[in-house]
């Protein structure tokens, strides 16, 4: 479903991604780990089409299509979802208005009828229960005054509403207490399906106790330094990232 080949990208003057190869198949959950500044978020942003990141080399195929040639909204409509590390606030725009606009943009793209206010409310109420979000968040401005945990839950709510084919979660676990972490992980596990791929970016092994990945990749200095099964995450927990950074050439590419 997702095939990244020799991907190089820069943000401003700095080359951040220096040749990434990574494949995520349908039904698979891949974890992407790595130290701060290794390029994890940059990769997530490239996949979502963040305009400030420039791809200088390589290719990304999504369901056989050239992902990099698609505008961000087109990617979203085709089923690519990014749960943001730092969800932005949009003052004055209610969450429900935004979510409905988003859901309907996708439905329209698929040639489905747009949901009216009543149908939408029914849908969103159902999904909110899953992430244990209070309905009062519907009438509040997008992420405004939300706590860190509330923002992350809001991201998972959006994922549940939009039912993406490829979900990229950018450090959704960072800054969460254990209860919020469980809720977020439940939300993700709930969405695991045979036709859905997920790339879970995390700094800590902790999240992977709740979301058990099929594959684990380690990103250091813009390259995949190691790939393996879920036991790789445990090894990283014990040994840290240092041993990988020193000998990147010995690592297997994903």
């Amino acid at each position, binding site marked *: 479903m997702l095939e990244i080949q020799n991907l190089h990208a820069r943000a401003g003057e700095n080359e951040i991604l220096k040749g990434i190869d990574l494949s995520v198949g349908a039904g698979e959950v891949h974890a992407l780990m790595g130290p701060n500044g290794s390029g994890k978020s940059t990769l997530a942003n490239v996949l*979502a*089409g*963040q*305009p*400030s990141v420039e791809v200088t080399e390589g290719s990304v195929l999504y369901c056989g299509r050239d992902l990099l040639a698609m*505008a*961000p*909204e087109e*990617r*979203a*409509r085709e089923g690519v*979802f*990014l749960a*943001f590390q730092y*969800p*932005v606030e*949009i*003052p*004055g*725009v209610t969450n429900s*208005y*935004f979510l409905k*606009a*988003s859901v309907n*943009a*996708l439905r329209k*793209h698929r040639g489905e009828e747009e949901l009216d206010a009543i149908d939408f409310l029914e849908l969103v109420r159902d999904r909110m229960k899953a992430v244990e979000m209070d309905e009062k968040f519907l009438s509040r*401005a997008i992420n405004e005054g939300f706590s860190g945990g509330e923002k992350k839950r809001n991201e998972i709510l*959006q994922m549940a509403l*939009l039912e993406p084919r490829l979900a990229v979660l950018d450090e959704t676990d960072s800054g969460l207490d254990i209860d919020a972490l469980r809720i977020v992980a439940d939300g993700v596990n709930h969405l695991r399906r045979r036709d859905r791929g997920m790339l879970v970016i995390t700094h800590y092994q902790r999240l992977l106790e709740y979301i058990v990945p099929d594959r684990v990749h380690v990103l250091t200095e813009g390259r995949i330094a190691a790939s393996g099964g879920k036991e790789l995450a445990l090894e990283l927990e014990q040994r840290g990232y240092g041993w990988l950074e020193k000998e990147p050439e010995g690592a297997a590419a994903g």
Partner: protein
Amino acid sequence: MADNTAIEEIANREYEHGFVTEIEEDRIPPGLTEDTVRLISSKKNEPEWLLDWRLKALRRFLEMLEADREPTWAQVTYPKIDYQSIVYYAAPKQTKTVESLDEIDPELLRTYEKLGIPLVEQQRLSGVAVDAVFDSVSVATTFKEELEKQGIVFCSFSDAVKEHPELVRRYLGSVVPYSDNFFACLNSAVFSDGSFAYIPKGVRCPMELSTYFRINSAGTGQFERTLLVADEGASVSYLEGCTAPMRDENQLHAAVVELVALDDAAIKYSTVQNWYPGDKNGKGGIYNFVTKRGACRGRRSKISWTQVETGSAITWKYPSCILQGDDSVGEFYSVAVTNNRQQADTGTKMLHIGRNTKSTIISKGISAGRGQQSYRGLVRIGPKAHGARNYSQCDSLLLGDQCGAHTFPYLEVKNASATVEHEATTSKIGEDQLFYCRQRGISEEDAVSMIVNGFCKEVLRELPMEFAVEAQNLLGISLEGSVG
């Protein structure tokens, strides 16, 4: 970098109301002399006192013009206006007085229909009485009879002079004296028409009153005058809309609006201003130099201004409140948009004179393209205004990096018991906000519109329903796309 093509497309979208109505017109030669004023006055069969008032204004204006006293303190630039080259009166030709709408030139009716303001009975906007002003004259007023049953007077200014001279004479110039300022003075000399409303004691006006101003004729200026009086315990909501054809030359619009609220009266005055803003290089467009002021004369009276300013090449406008009556309330809610080469210097004055007077100022400025915008506001608390309170909030939103936003808040407090609060913010529409929306499948143009409408929410919710929707659409059209 950001994909700007969608944006540019929208930014270049044509001004929707830019068409010209072909109609035979009665038009006087350009120029401004005593004869011009006498001619306008005689065309309207005005009484002597009004002509005298006009002539006093004219003499004062010519003195100011001679002394080069055109105001220059506003943060706007434009070439010197040649006041002798303007046509001060142009009106659709009409041989006799119109008794009913059937006698109005169908071309005019079509014009208003095209603008979304149907005047004929079957299609009228329900719950909104409209006075349609075309160039220098009012062409029709709807629901006049229905309103009369409750003693409400709503008619063109010219009719008011004929039918209610005592009211006009009593209140005309009582809030904005003819000598008030350069443009008000010009208006007082040459104003040709406008709307008049009087709401008698204890009457709540059952429908929205509205005036739709249309400039059509080339080379003319529009100088209308609106006077609204709410007697004791009366209340009214008034709406004002404006459009003009696209022309390469600049046209002057110098209006005066006076509001008077007596004891326990309330006036809500809403404007959606969409004069032609000029093309994207700044060619053409309306110079909108307007004086609007309301007097809260009575105790517990209230005047609320809401404006959405999206049009005009230059806007120079400060709807103000004189809070004279004890416990009176003044409000100013404003959204101003400047895109391309538009300039706006707008704000308000809240003059607290009575005790426990209260004012609120919420100003939202949005600049895009090479637009330049200033908020200029004065809050003056007089020595007798014990317990006066003011809250001001001025927020600016920038789209792109070639536009500008400025804030000039003036504060004069002469009573120690007053409470004055001022908050101001400037923010840029974030690439990250746009990206967030796009990542959720929302197009860039819809995202801009959504973010801007969110930014203006506190003001838009003050607008009557019919206007709120129009205002939101206008914001979308005049703005989207200017993210650089």
